[in-house]
């Protein structure tokens, strides 16, 4: 049976299991276990600190899908993603191209645009609160100079979510920029020479024929990572709007937090977490599937 295949050697097999066991243990304790606990809790009516819990099957999910606040929160989260993902991906790409094409000050610009990524978003949210202050904030003061009345960015139900999305773009464009720069570095220069010989003389032609297709895998990766990150928006909502006014900035993680830790409806909060996990998992699978296809194009 052994056929000289080293993997069938019982000793080596044991060693292999022993070697992966720490990783497995960590996976079970830190990821699989808690996730499973959340799924189980989502099937109960448990409230934080309650002496009893009952299995109520899919009761929490039924209530969830009939809950106006949940759907509002779900849609808001998607609207937020639909603004932040394209915004931060194209801004990141633009910045990467500009900095790569610059003749001086590359390191400075790279650092400057990457700074928002390294700063703590909670602290930055407080800074944004000052900038967005309706009467004395820098943004409205500047707008006033050109004759525009800015209004209250965070208390206007029509504007608040997009204001938060703007902060989201500002925060994640830097990371996308760095990822695109890595992608640009990997494009062999001879491709540009070949394109030029073939008649792609303008900057746009070269971008369309060489840069953009060669950045395909990087773009996919950046898009999915931005999607997952913006799906997890919480800090700015907690600090700046608390989901208001009138739930106009209520997002999934914030709803989960208020239900589970402010209203103590732990079972219900767990159900929201499960929905959240499913969406993130779907996004990740999408990346893996699409990534497999993409790697074979060459």
């Amino acid at each position, binding site marked *: 049976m052994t056929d000289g295949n080293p993997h069938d050697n019982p000793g080596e097999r044991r060693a292999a299991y022993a070697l992966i066991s720490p990783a497995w243990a960590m996976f079970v304790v830190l990821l699989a276990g808690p996730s499973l606990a959340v799924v189980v809790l989502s099937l109960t*009516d448990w*409230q*934080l*600190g*309650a*002496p009893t819990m009952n299995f109520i099957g899919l009761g929490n999910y039924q209530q969830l899908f009939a809950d106006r606040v949940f759907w509002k929160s779900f849609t808001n989260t998607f609207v937020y993603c639909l603004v932040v993902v394209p915004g931060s991906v194209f801004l990141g790409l633009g910045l990467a191209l500009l900095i790569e094409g610059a003749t001086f000050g590359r390191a400075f610009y790279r650092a400057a645009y990457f700074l928002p990524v390294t700063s703590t978003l909670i602290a930055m949210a407080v800074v944004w609160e000052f900038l967005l202050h309706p*009467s004395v904030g820098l943004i409205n003061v500047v707008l006033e100079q050109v004759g525009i009345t800015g209004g*209250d960015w965070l*208390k206007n*139900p029509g504007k608040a979510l997009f204001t938060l999305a703007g902060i989201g773009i500002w925060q994640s464009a830097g990371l996308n920029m760095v990822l695109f720069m890595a992608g640009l570095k990997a494009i062999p220069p001879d491709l540009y020479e070949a394109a030029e010989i073939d008649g792609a003389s303008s900057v746009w032609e070269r971008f369309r024929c060489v840069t953009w297709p060669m950045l395909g895998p990087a773009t996919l990766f950046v898009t999915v990572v931005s999607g997952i990150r913006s799906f997890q928006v919480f800090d700015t909502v907690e600090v700046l709007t608390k989901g*208001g*006014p*009138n*739930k106009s900035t209520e997002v999934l993680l914030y709803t989960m937090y*208020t*239900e589970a*830790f*402010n*209203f*103590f*409806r732990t079972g219900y909060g767990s159900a929201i977490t499960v929905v959240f996990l499913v969406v993130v998992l779907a996004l990740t699978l999408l990346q893996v599937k699409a990534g497999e296809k993409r790697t074979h194009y060459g």
Partner: protein
Amino acid sequence: MRKLLGLAALAAAFIAGPATAQTEIVVQYPIPDIFKDVHEEIAKQFMAANPNIKVKFTQPTKEYEDATQQVLRNAVTGQLPDVTFQGLNRQRILADRNIAQPLDGLIAAEKDWAKAGYDGALLTLGQVKGKQYGMGFSLSTPIIYFNADLVKKAGGDPDNFPKTWDGIFALAKKINDPANKIAGFHFDWDITGNWMWQALVLSNGGTMLTPDETKVAFDGPAGQKAINTLRLMMTDGGMRDVSQATALQDFVSGRLGIWAHSTSRLGGVTKQSQGVFPLRTATFPLGAGAESRLPAGGNVAMMLAKDPAKQKAAWEYIKFATGPVGATVMVKGTGYFPANALPAKDAKMLGDFYAQNPNHRVAIGQLPSMTAWYAFPGENGLKITDVIKDHLQSVVNGSAKPDEALKKMTADTQALLPK
């Protein structure tokens, strides 16, 4: 066998011996920026008077919300403090989950309870379904703060402040001066637990639910008056849709004329307004005469200890903190008033303090109308307060008509009540 039992009893006596010599109790409290010095001073005086009990504090929580959160988490992990100070409207959560211990037995065992200064009306604030779970520690009530300079400038008389909302709105309109960034009026409608909404409904003689707690009652005449008053604050009173923090900043910097808020800030605002403007207070408008009620705010001491020895020590501490000595320390350090009647009668304790601080006396005058800060029943109790807050917001920003908002608010609340 008898010998063995005797030995066991002897051993038990030895083990219990040191425990009675010094019992340690763990105490948890919220809002350290108001209460830290107060609690530490009370504990110091308590330990000096009771050398056999040692008081240890856990890390205080920032707000009432996290104080409840922490106790619930501790209940899961079995690390409950022996005494906790909780917001008045949070007692129900801990009583319903059997985490807090009822105090009725301990009160019945007290010899001179009638002379201890705990008035019946104030005791009811700590009762859940007829049982005593909390002992009032620091209480607050909604009142009107005003800037006497701005009121005078607008032609009002600070010694004769309006007693109705209409009167207040008329005065606010004259104070209002947007060109100079002076606002006339603000009402902190979004204080936690729908506290100010309850104040509006109760002061008009209404209640939140029917007495049997099965049906919404704020859709009646009192509630209709309350929600219309809230809208009139914007249209007639010129109130802006701003956060509590903005209103507070505006008031202490002399840019807000009239401000309805809790007495809890009186200590801080008195200090901050010194040298800026003369601060005065007035009673909250009562729209239903003798039927008017106002919700009490603030916090109570609750006992979580299950062990009899610890319970005994915890009870001694609760009596000390909520009694004359603790109340005197607390009142002098904050804007709250005590739930014990004794210190205000004694010139050495708080009698002189109230004589010299008429702004603090206004709240004492509101004592007869005081009632509980209502907590909604059932597992959705806290969610209901959030639903109500959202509907009130829609009235404040004008996106819904008051009567329509009240109708929706009633239906949404009814749907979340236990069936």
